[in-house]
């Protein structure tokens, strides 16, 4: 397994390099003069020159890339054009918020998804099953940003139960977390259902029932354990959905995370910020995928890596 992890890590290196290159190229392939675009049309010549120098755009491309990579390794991501503060400072202020939101979204997705899937699978083709699957289908088709707005409308504006914006308390996290987790919950529910249905038909479940075990024990202790393996795969595949969901959800709830930083950066043409935010999200995505691949081995002893 260690050999597999090492191989998987090595395969990740070119991808990370590629991501860094894309981020580097971003500013350089903007049509027109990037320094002028960043500075805005009304900027003075000196200001444009200053930005060009600041970003190193006046040096040869190869040198620029080497400098970029070297400062990246040192963790130096440049300075924000807007706030003049080091980009890394802004990033560190925002990263915990996005991590908190994504993890909370994941908790919602897994707990709601698995429960709904099990409930559906215990009584397949019943009214409950149909209702759960219909809700799951709707959940899948709902745009994240709209479900966020609907939650605000119902629970913050109409009922006044939960706050719509802010990050101070746990209550502030509830609506954004549901928003992030909803689509993934729907996918997990569908997957859990089909996986449970298959497991519940297997011989060892019949044996467990024949032994006289109570049905809840059969379902939770025997069936669910094995049914969850494909679910973990889905959770891994959904990392992207969760992260993208977080990016969009942050805009709905004015949640001060990386996603919002990215959007604000683009609208203000603050390219160092945009570069850094893109880099962080893409890296997180690549590394989480790697972690999940490795995790399979720990969960399912039947999986052997070569």
């Amino acid at each position, binding site marked *: 397994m260690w050999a597999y992890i090492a191989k998987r890590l090595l395969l990740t290196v070119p991808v990370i390099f590629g991501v860094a290159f894309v981020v580097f190229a971003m500013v350089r392939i903007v049509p027109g003069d990037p320094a002028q675009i960043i500075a805005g049309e009304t900027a003075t010549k000196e200001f444009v020159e200053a930005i060009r120098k600041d970003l190193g755009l006046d040096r040869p491309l190869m040198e620029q890339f080497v400098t970029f990579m070297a400062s990246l390794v040192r963790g130096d991501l440049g300075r924000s054009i807007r706030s003049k503060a080091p980009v890394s400072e802004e990033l560190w202020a925002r990263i915990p918020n996005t991590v908190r939101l994504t993890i909370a979204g994941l908790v919602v997705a897994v707990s709601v998804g698995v429960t709904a899937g099990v409930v559906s699978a215990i009584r397949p083709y019943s009214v409950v099953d149909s209702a759960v699957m219909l809700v799951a289908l709707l959940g899948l088709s709902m745009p994240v940003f709209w479900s966020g707005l609907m939650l605000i409308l119902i629970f913050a504006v109409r009922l006044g139960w939960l706050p719509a914006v802010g990050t101070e308390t746990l209550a502030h996290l509830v609506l954004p977390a549901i928003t992030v987790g909803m689509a993934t919950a729907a996918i997990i529910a569908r997957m859990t259902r089909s996986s449970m249905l298959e497991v519940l038909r297997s011989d060892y479940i019949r044996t467990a029932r024949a032994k006289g075990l109570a049905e809840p024990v059969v379902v939770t202790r025997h069936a669910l354990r094995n049914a969850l393996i494909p679910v973990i795969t889905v959770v891994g595949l959904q990392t992207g959905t969760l992260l993208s969901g977080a990016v969009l959800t942050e805009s709905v709830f004015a949640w001060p995370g990386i996603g919002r930083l990215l959007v604000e950066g683009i609208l203000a043409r603050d390219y160092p910020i*945009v570069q850094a935010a893109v880099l962080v*999200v893409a890296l997180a995505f690549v590394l989480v995928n790697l972690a999940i691949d490795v995790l399979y081995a720990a969960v399912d002893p039947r999986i052997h890596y070569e």
Partner: protein
Amino acid sequence: MVTATPAVRAETILRPGRTRFRMAWAQFRRNRAGLIGLAILMAFLGAGLFAPVLAPYDPYEIDLEGGLKKPSRAHWLGQDELGRDLLSRIIYGARLSLVIGIIAVSIGVGFGVPIGAISGYVGGWWDLLVQRLIDIMLAFPGILLAIVLVAILGVGLVQVMVAVGIVSIPTYARLVRGQVLSLRAQEFVDAARALGATAGRILWRHVLPNTLAVIIVQSTLQIASAILSAAALGFLGLGAQPPTAEWGAMLSNARQYIRLAWHSVTFPGMAIMLTVLGFNLLGDAIRDALDPKMRI
């Protein structure tokens, strides 16, 4: 009568009119969810194509006195903050979404299919290079890549269509490559090669037609995700700009008035959801009809 049986069998198999399309349609017709999806999409298509006839008002006509008015007899879905008729704007939004979906998918198919087909058929360093590039593109969650592209191309509706189209290229390339890899090893391809067909002819006449089913299924699902991504970008303020009647941009505008006008945040989102639902149901049903083995 030993020879009679195979003759009868051959006749049954070759019965005219029982084409693959008809068989797929017969299968599709039995799928209730698929038919619901089709019905939703016909409504969406109708709204998109006949927007000027169907819309009761001009979607850009401002009526300041009617600002944020709730649904009424005159305005079935209410009015937005500038008093524009929400129903008319949603109908025109369908037209825009249709265009976005078609253009984005055309870009995805137009580039992704040839890239994937050549990559799978030729193999070697070209395949290796393309696969690594795809790895890098897939290292970004879909919407993030679209955001990156918008950051490069600039904010606007056309840029969003291009960005969303580019994002779908790796999906098509991977899909078609996989298909081509398995088709390449089959006997009919060997036969064509033995007959002296060129690589281009084999790909175009023999291999690609066999990948059509997966391309159709993928495209149906991809239109849904293109519409969703474009709406998301519109919502973030990176796509269509006001006053364009685009669903995402409409939501972005309406959210400031969420406390005053529930209708202006509810209906545009519902339109997006129904359209995406329609495409998803239809895509699943087409997949089941064309190839039951692909059912998940």
